[in-house]
């Protein structure tokens, strides 16, 4: 008994050491979104390309919807743009854009210059929908499943590695869920 007590400080020190050592390798930037598991909120915002056309939640058609938050002031968006053109080809998903607190003309110019990967882009000038889904910067990409639930938020630019590691497994998982739901 006595000898165990003698080792308590050492044990505490080792436990604390392990805790702090693990802390060194955590990424403080990676934050889980509070919106995961919650439905995509209702919204009424104009389309980027057709200003008189109002868009709502029901306009995001598709079983697996990717909602990509972008803006012309966002440098990383430029970096991920070619890859977005690439994944827009994937028949399993529908890629929508959320143009976030941006200038309409600049945004239209951007889509003309770099090509438009989106089925359509929502024009969120005031950042209203962005606020409702907890956007804190751009680019961010949300995955919404066939039941309208937000399944994932990825903050940062998408590239091939991110796509294969972060998105493809989830897309496959949702597809299995859909198959199970249908049978």
């Amino acid at each position: 008994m006595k000898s165990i007590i003698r080792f308590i400080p050492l044990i505490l020190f080792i436990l604390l050491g392990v805790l702090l050592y693990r802390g060194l390798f955590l990424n403080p930037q990676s934050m889980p979104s509070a919106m995961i598991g919650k439905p995509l909120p209702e919204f009424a915002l104009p389309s980027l390309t057709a200003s008189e056309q109002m868009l709502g939640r029901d306009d995001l058609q598709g079983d697996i919807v990717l909602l990509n938050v972008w803006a012309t002031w966002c440098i990383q968006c430029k970096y991920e743009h070619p890859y977005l053109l690439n994944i827009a080809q994937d028949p399993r998903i529908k890629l929508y854009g959320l143009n976030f607190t941006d200038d309409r003309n600049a945004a239209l110019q951007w889509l003309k210059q770099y090509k438009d990967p989106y089925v359509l882009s929502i024009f969120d000038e005031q950042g209203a929908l962005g606020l409702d889904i907890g956007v804190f910067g751009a680019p961010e990409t949300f995955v919404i499943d066939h039941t309208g639930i937000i399944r994932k938020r990825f903050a940062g630019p998408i590239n091939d590695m991110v796509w294969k590691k972060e998105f493809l497994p989830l897309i496959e998982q949702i597809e299995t869920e859909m198959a199970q739901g249908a049978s």
Partner: protein
Amino acid sequence: MHTQPNGHYILQIAKVLGLAMSSLLLSFLLISNVSASPVDTFQFKDEATKIRFQVLSKELRCPKCQNQNLADSNSKIAVDLRKNLYNLLQEGKSDQEIIDFMVYRYGDFVLYRPQLKKQTYILWFGPLVIFLGFIISLVFVLRKRSKLKASELNLSSAEQANLDDILNKK
């Protein structure tokens, strides 16, 4: 012989210089502190709302920044959220409603003061438990020590003689 007044002078000069430096440093710190916070031009309906805005923007953390509150940060998201906070206050929302609004969207990360719930019990009560643990073990150790009898100390005769000697000196 001549070195002593010289040394005295040097000491005095050093003292004056040190004082000047530290007051200069202090004034810089005070100035930079004043000019650091960003300025918004919000018009509040009354003084109470203004104070609530100031309190809430200090309590809420900027989601993008690692350790800055909404009041301190000039990042885009912090500016937007301050504007949003202002709108919510003007709409007459209560403090709790505003906090719930932010937590629903951005998670517990936005709160500098964690909410009291199951996952945060260890944060809130952990220090108290550790403190009580120390007090209890301290009491035990002290009681055990006061109960020790002289005969249990197993002193050698030489040590006993030494001890008696010390005690009798008084």
